[in-house]
């Protein structure tokens, strides 16, 4: 399994061409997809054409960037011009975007080779990728288990080496939880660091695009390529983007790390707790000062999220009406029944459930009791983090309370599914950067994830702590046998 930097070396030393690297990725996808089902579409022709452009640049002696010729998977809620973008939903089964998302545009400019669009829970609503209208993605470590979600296709594809890196989106944990379940690195950046132009909206005050990689360095390189201000996204931040690879220093002397006490409570698997405690010992050995930090309102994150996100979703998804694009039910005889039939047939159960929750929470008489109250609790959760970052540089917790669960295990009970995002959601509510990286394996050989949370725009510190730990432990060298 080669990293971005290794492949880049092979390209510039002319040991391999970009076309050969792309063909190898496409071959592996072809071989594994019957078992894994990570991709909703494989874009072989476009990928080979892009690889050829990189090879032409190399042949003419041009310098190429680190991402040039690197195979990448793109979550299928990012619009790709001329390439079908379904969001894992029947309602968008025929949608061919007339425009390109900013992040995929930047990656194409950097020479990255998109090999396909990855599977996801419909409209990024879910924690197992089982809510996709098209297929269920398998976890490469155990194909009877889920890869996590909602960016499960991207995580499984990277873990199984179908591509080197991938993009996902994270509204309540949809990058970090699948990274944890698949034993790879995934980062949700600070809200506003990465432009969301062309990301199909789920919950706009929380959504953020971020990278997956098998190593901290790969994730850092990919973030550097997609971050930055964009006039097309009015929530994007006008801030300078540092070279994140400069933060990859294998030393934690003087770093102050806080353990969030409340994340070691009820519902946490003991094997996960043990792995995270061992990681904390490793941080100490690397020279970090570790202390316990209480975030008393942390546990209210989950109910807060499940008011706020569905409320925003109910508004965002009102646009799917069968008029201008997407699926339309043909049985209707009036405009109103066309709307209600189109939406009834086009959306899956979880999407309908969240639209219903959101519509209820925003409806007359309930707004103050639910939506407004949740926004106030959101302030309290943010204040807990602000207080914590007065005394530490980063916070750590488990990424998810368990390792990957079996397919079908939680589909009957929506609340039990929601609980797997308990530790990632507060980070979205506060807009902070959060990264998951592997910190061990359970008795069945399933990966365990460690979450590192940074202060606003302190991705550099998150990367440093993650990198130092990764280099000291080597969990990232374990590979699934598939």
């Amino acid at each position, binding site marked *: 399994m080669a990293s971005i930097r290794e492949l880049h070396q092979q390209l510039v030393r002319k040991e391999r061409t970009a076309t050969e690297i792309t063909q190898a990725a496409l071959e592996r996808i072809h071989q594994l997809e019957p078992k894994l089902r990570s991709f909703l579409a494989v874009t072989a022709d476009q990928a080979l054409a892009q690889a050829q452009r990189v090879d032409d640049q190399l042949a003419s002696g041009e310098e190429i960037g680190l991402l040039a010729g690197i195979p990448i998977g793109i979550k299928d809620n990012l619009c790709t011009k001329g390439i079908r973008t379904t969001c894992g939903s029947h309602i968008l089964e*025929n*949608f*061919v975007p*007339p425009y390109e998302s900013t992040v995929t545009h930047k990656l194409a400019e950097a020479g990255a080779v998109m090999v396909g669009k990855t599977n996801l829970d419909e409209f990024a609503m879910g924690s197992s990728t089982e809510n996709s209208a098209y297929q269920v993605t398998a976890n490469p470590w155990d194909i009877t288990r889920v890869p996590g979600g909602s960016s499960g296709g991207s995580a499984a594809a990277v873990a199984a080496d179908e591509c080197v890196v991938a993009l996902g989106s994270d509204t309540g944990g949809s990058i970090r939880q699948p990274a944890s379940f698949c034993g790879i690195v995934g980062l949700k950046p600070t*809200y*506003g660091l990465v432009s969301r132009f062309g990301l199909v909206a789920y919950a706009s*005050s929380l959504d953020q695009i971020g990278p997956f990689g098998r190593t901290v360095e790969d994730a850092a390189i990919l973030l550097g390529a997609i971050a930055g201000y964009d*006039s097309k996204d009015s929530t994007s*931040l006008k801030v300078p983007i540092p070279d994140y690879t400069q933060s990859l220093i294998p030393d934690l002397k003087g770093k102050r790390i806080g353990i969030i006490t409340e994340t070691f409570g009820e519902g946490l698997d003991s094997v996960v707790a043990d792995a995270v405690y061992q990681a904390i010992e490793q941080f100490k050995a690397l020279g970090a000062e570790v202390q316990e930090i209480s975030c008393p309102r942390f546990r*209210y994150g989950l*109910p*807060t999220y*499940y*008011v706020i996100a569905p409320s925003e979703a*109910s508004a965002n998804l*009102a646009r799917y*009406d069968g*008029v*201008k*694009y*997407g*699926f*339309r039910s043909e049985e209707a*005889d*009036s*405009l*109103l*029944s*066309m*709307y*209600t039939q189109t*939406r*009834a047939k086009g*959306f899956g159960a979880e999407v*309908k*459930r969240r*639209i*219903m*929750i959101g*519509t*209820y929470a925003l*409806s007359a008489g309930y707004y103050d009791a*639910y939506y*407004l*109250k*949740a*926004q*106030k*609790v*959101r*302030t*309290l959760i*943010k204040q807990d983090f602000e207080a914590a970052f007065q005394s530490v540089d980063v916070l750590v917790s488990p990424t998810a309370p368990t390792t990957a669960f079996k397919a079908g295990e939680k589909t009957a009970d929506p*609340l039990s599914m929601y609980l797997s995002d308990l530790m990632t959601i507060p980070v*979205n*509510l*506060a*807009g*902070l950067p959060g990264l998951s990286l592997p910190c061990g394996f359970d008795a069945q050989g399933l990966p365990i994830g460690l979450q590192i949370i940074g202060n*606003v725009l302190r991705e550099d510190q998150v990367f440093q702590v993650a990198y130092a730990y990764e280099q000291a432990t080597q969990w990232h060298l374990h590979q699934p046998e598939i």
Partner: protein
Amino acid sequence: MIDQTQVHKVANLARLALTEAEEVQFTTQLGSILDYFEQLSELDVSNVEPTTRAIDVSNITRPDDLQPNGDRDAIFANAPDQDGDFFKVPKIMKDQEA
């Protein structure tokens, strides 16, 4: 507690045609989710300002310049039904009864 009549009303607001079976199922599921939300009442939020977005930015403007907005044919190609320069939909008004 939410009942099936309310679920029916909310589905109408959300422009979702639910089956009877879906209404029954959502009544139970939404009920337990709303119960779960009750724990938010444990917190005193009387003097707390709401947070509308995680990192606040305000008054974002740009020069009001004309820009080409996408490829017209590609936009129309996505339409379920179309006539000339129009998106076509089922009739909005009821037929007049004689």
